[in-house]
């Protein structure tokens, strides 16, 4: 058997159609209003959950319909088409990060308590790794978890936590011993309302609907039942999940870039200069062609990485290094690409590109998060360079 195995099967077409309908009805019509209000309704989580769109990557045992990461990819691609990227970010932080962590590293009791209600959208989660003094450098975190009998006392702060200022629970990475090194990081689940746990929403220039927050832990006491995974296994868990996070961001960025290009072309058709539509100028035709090639190339790379991820998830022997390299490459390629496409979308709008009433500037602002969040471009290059065995990081 040779050739590329199709990534999507017939059932995925039906899933895509359902996802498209959901996004077209429940997100797209409200996107502009939510953007102005810098808010989207919490009920969207339960709507997504009840219609099953949090469930594709989770097993039926916990209320999911999978695990099927190709279906999950379909949902991510379609979600981008709602053009509410802060909303997509919050939904993603909940499902692709927090809930996935519980699924992968949680006990049966923990899954019953946090995963099941996350999949049906009743309980909102977030993942808190980044701190004021440590982002991509996970090993640099300073939040501590100190044993106190059967409990742990958590102290420290987290920042840029997507969905963090609204979630019901947060998976927190903390140092569980005084020794340095990445073998001393442990994950904990902290619930809203825990004494000593407080948070603020942060105003970003992008993702206006997102509840991105800074979190503070002041002697927050959690029982050992809140510890997710083994003591000291946190760094390994975080690293393991990075591959999917990068892939998910890549899928989302490619879809976003497709929307940007479409919006740019639509505007170029309508807008007339020097007696003809902008699209009538060859420089714009060729620029759009170049952008289409970059988008399609990024998509091919992302799908290649996704095949690799699915193979690994379904039990095939996939060298970890290959997965790390491909997902990092996909992330590096697609985030910048999506921003460049959005930038040309602003450019073709001319002065209107700066106006709030056009979506161009929103896509452009929102796309700028990509090369920073989830590991910066430079971090991706460090990782890729390491896998090429050329040295420095």
């Amino acid at each position, binding site marked *: 058997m040779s050739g590329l195995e199709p990534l999507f099967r017939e059932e995925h077409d039906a899933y895509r159609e359902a996802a498209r309908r959901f996004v077209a009805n429940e997100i797209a019509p409200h996107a502009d209003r939510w953007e102005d209000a810098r808010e989207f309704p919490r009920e969207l989580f339960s709507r997504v959950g009840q219609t099953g769109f949090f469930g594709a990557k989770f097993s039926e045992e916990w209320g999911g319909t999978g695990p099927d990461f190709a279906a999950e990819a379909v949902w991510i691609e379609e979600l981008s088409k709602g053009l509410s990227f802060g909303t997509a970010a919050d939904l993603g932080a909940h499902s692709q990060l927090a809930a996935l962590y519980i699924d992968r590293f949680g006990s049966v009791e923990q899954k019953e308590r946090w995963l099941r209600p996350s999949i049906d959208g009743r309980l909102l989660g977030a993942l808190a790794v980044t701190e004021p003094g440590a982002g991509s450098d996970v090993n640099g975190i300073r939040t501590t978890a100190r044993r106190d009998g059967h409990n742990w006392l958590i102290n420290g702060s987290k920042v840029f936590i997507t969905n963090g200022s609204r979630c019901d629970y947060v998976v927190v990475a903390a140092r569980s011993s005084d020794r340095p090194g990445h073998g001393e990081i442990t994950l904990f689940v902290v619930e809203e309302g825990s004494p000593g746990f407080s948070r603020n929403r942060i105003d970003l220039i992008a993702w206006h609907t997102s509840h991105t927050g800074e979190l503070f832990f002041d002697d927050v006491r959690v029982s050992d039942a809140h510890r997710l995974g083994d003591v000291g296994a946190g760094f390994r868990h975080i690293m393991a999940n990075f591959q999917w996070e990068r892939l998910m961001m890549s899928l989302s960025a490619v879809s976003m870039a497709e929307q940007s290009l479409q919006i740019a072309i639509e505007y170029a058709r309508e807008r007339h200069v020097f007696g003809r539509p902008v699209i009538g100028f060859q420089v714009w035709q*060729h620029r759009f062609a*170049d952008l289409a*090639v970059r988008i399609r190339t990024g998509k091919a790379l992302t799908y290649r990485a996704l095949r690799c991820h699915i193979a690994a998830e379904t039990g095939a022997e996939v060298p970890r290094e290959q997965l790390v390299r491909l997902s990092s490459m996909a992330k590096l390629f697609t985030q910048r690409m999506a921003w460049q496409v959005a930038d040309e979308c602003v450019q073709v709008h001319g002065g209107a590109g700066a106006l709030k009433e056009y979506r161009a500037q929103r896509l452009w602002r929102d796309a700028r998060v990509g090369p920073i969040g989830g590991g910066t471009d430079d971090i991706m290059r460090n990782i890729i360079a390491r896998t090429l065995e050329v040295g420095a990081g």
Partner: protein
Amino acid sequence: MNLSPFSEEHDLLRKSVAEWVDAEIAPHVPAWEAAGDFPNDVFTRAGELGFLGLAFPEAAGGHGGDYWAQVVFLEEVGRISQAIAMVLSVQTDMATPPILEFGTEDQIDRWLKPALRGELIGAIGITEPDTGSDVAAIRTRAVRDGDHWVLNGSKMYITNGARADFITMVVRTGEPEGDPRGGISMFIVETGLPGFSVSEKLDKAGMRLSDTAVLHMDDVRLPAEALLGTEGDGFKQIMWELQGERIGVSVFGVAGARAVLDEAIGYAGVREAFGSPIGRFQAVSHRLAEMATEVEAVQALVYECCDLWNRGIYATEEVAMAKLAVGQLSHQVADQAVQTLGGAGLVEGSFISREWLGMRIGRIGGGSDEVQRQILARIMGIA
């Protein structure tokens, strides 16, 4: 989920192509480049080993493999030299596929089978002194004369043109009559016929081992059976040919880009400056990471293209994208490799300098970057 498009059989094929390339091609490429020539037995050896007809059906003298077998072949020659890959690909992906697709049984017996055995060398004749990408503007003309055609005109930049036994050629046989693409036909032009001459072998900046010729046809009398396919369908037929041509050059172009990348990575690991290998400097390692990312991405696109082609899907959009992306990729990656090697990258005859020169051709030959963009813009409905 399969991670590789290749089967075990393909892996074995790769091994045997690699053995041939490493033993019989690679050691001679520098001398061939310096001489601006290479021996014709490259074709006969490739034919003997069965490499010229990998994806052709057995009934036509091929080996009945799928397109991925051809991908293996092009990748293995492409990693050694873009020039050798080009001359072989002219034979396997340009001059011969139209004979299989549009030819009669007699034409297959007379031209295709010996070409797949490496006994006849083919070339593809599209470009003329005054027209390249604009195929509809060709002026070389064949006029019917009894049961013969009389051919007059010239063709330019024809790879393998000085050594070819036959040229698969597009020629004007009538007036456009409303359809600008009308009045064009394809012929198999035997180069030994009276009136056919190679008027010049061009001296090029890259791919020097290959002969790029200006051909002149002065009252060449072609027999009726030289017509390939249907009279007047030549434009459509050559557009079909260009699909396979562009996928082929994309495949060996990516393989070449990967080869220069590997050379740069290897060099960065051993070359020391300021007390450490230059690959340990973050600026250098990040550049290599960028190059590797681009190579991986474009290869993924090319493989999707190959997959469509292998399944018989005529994917003009993906093919134009791959051609455009690979032309730019190999050019840029080769340039970054030259930069990484520093002075060593500028030494005449070195692998990197040679491939850097050769890779510049990828953005011009087989339809320039601009032509690919124009095709894409049309498909996207914006031009």
